[in-house]
């Protein structure tokens, strides 16, 4: 294996020729992208465009049909399961519906990564859990509750606390504001900015909330469903700063940003 060049060391993630099929259906094809350390990247696109599949491929939760994902200079496909588990501890994952463990209290949920990966004693675990719950604006009394007793916004905040408790290098957010009211959505946006200010993290945010993309991200990638593209078209329609979305050259990007149905209504009426 060749030594990494100075340019490589700036990159935390390098994706080359990524191709993912499910049941013979092409979800992602020929995806090439790099994400630099410290960058906050929003991946936007309509449902079914493959953004969640891309995100899960970045942390090895989905094995690509073809192509490579290099995390901090290491090709994920070449790692053993134990090595892959070890690398995943450097990544914090915030799931769409928080994915908190129902059978555990909030305290045990947030403490799970510490117990799983370190030998910290009970006092240390307690101190760190309480610190992170307070960072996401949750009171101490929440610690003994079960996930089912919390609102959607509180569960998302617990999910963020759990994802950052090991101070990961990369935090991946899957639809962090979906299903929340506008105020709680903004709270989550502020929390994502806060995480970025407090810790030296790289963030990847999968969202279709344009406010999140514009407020939190340094760079936006817009994906388009493979089924709507001609074979030679690239799946990433936009790669640039959030400020450039409104004036993007591609009409499909502007249409998505403005939330316009466009020709979709005609397609729907034709199909019925």
């Amino acid at each position: 294996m060749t030594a990494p060049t100075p340019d490589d060391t700036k990159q935390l993630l390098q994706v080359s020729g990524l191709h993912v099929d499910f049941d013979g259906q092409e979800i992602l094809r020929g995806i090439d992208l790099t994400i630099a350390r410290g960058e906050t990247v929003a991946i936007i696109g309509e449902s079914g465009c493959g953004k969640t599949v891309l995100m899960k491929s970045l942390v090895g939760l989905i094995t690509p049909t073809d192509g490579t994902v290099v995390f901090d200079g290491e090709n994920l496909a070449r790692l053993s399961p134990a090595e892959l588990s070890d690398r995943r501890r450097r990544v914090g994952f915030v799931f769409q519906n928080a994915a908190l463990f129902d059978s555990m209290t909030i305290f045990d949920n947030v403490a799970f990564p510490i117990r799983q990966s370190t030998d910290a004693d009970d006092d240390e675990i307690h101190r760190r859990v309480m610190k992170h719950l307070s960072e996401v604006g949750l009171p101490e009394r929440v610690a003994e509750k079960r996930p089912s007793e919390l609102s959607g916004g509180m569960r998302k905040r617990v999910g963020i606390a759990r994802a950052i408790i090991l101070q990961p290098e990369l935090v991946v957010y899957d639809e962090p504001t979906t299903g929340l009211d506008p105020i709680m959505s903004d709270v989550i946006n502020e929390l994502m900015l806060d995480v970025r200010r407090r810790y030296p993290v790289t963030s990847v945010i999968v969202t279709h909330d344009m406010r999140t993309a514009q407020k939190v991200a340094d760079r936006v990638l817009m994906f388009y469903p493979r089924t709507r593209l001609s074979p030679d078209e690239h799946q990433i329609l936009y790669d640039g700063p959030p400020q450039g979305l409104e004036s993007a050259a591609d009409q499909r990007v502007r249409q998505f940003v403005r939330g316009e149905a466009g020709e979709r209504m005609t397609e729907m009426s034709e199909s019925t």
Partner: protein
Amino acid sequence: MSLSVSTTNDPPRQPNHGPTPSVRDMLYAWVVQWGSAVVAGIETTGDIALFAWRMLTWLFTRLPQRGTLLVNFYQIGVLSLPVVALTGTFIGMVLAVQSYYQFHAIGLESHLGVVINTSLVRELGPVLAATMLAGRVGSAMAAVLGTMRVTEQIDALTAMGADPIHYLVVPRFLACILLIPALTIMADFMGIVGGYFYSVIVLEIDHASYLSHSRDGVVGFDLFSGIFKSVFFGAVIAVISCYQGFHCKPGAEGVGTAATAAFVYSFVMILAIDLVLNIILDKIYFAMYPAGVSIL
């Protein structure tokens, strides 16, 4: 021959469904259909074997934490005791009811205990305990793990560097194989007690001769074979139910299907394994007791 001209009095024409399929086409379709089913069956069997292999690899490399084990032991073993005891008691009494008239007709009702106890210890106790475990615990395991799959909790475990098979399947497997012998003994015991009380109190069989004949009929090997089989039943319940949960399809229907499949496949496999193990154990039994042990 001239073509007839259709009139309004003609019978209505049958709708045209295209040419009738030939026997060759039907045979082809039949082979394709059954072939796909066989291939799918082989694939699933291979998948379950790989799943079990991964679980066994973890079992021999790193045991789960004590807290995780205890929770599963309590839910799978302790909470199953009452229902296993209750059903065991009823089966013992049902055996007494069913066998009494045949034995009474030939004047051998005092030997009823031998039949009840042998049937329970060798066959009904282990199969009943396993069936109750598959129904109470197997379906619940598939539903819990299926919900965890659907709500991305299994992905969350993986994302946090934990292995879901090590964390979720190994403790359930250990609880099933280590506690099903205790449940089997409970089913045997309560069945024997239920059979005794029904025979002696309701059917008024002589207490002393019932006990004396009972003692003669059951040998240690019978008890051993029942408990030995139960360990395999426990393993099958854990592997099949956890596999169904891990491979649950999305949505409420997916979870429901996984829970049903967990019970149905576990039950079928319990009976299939029971047959195979009985054949093997019988060979060992007759090698040990060439004359056999007469129940009469």
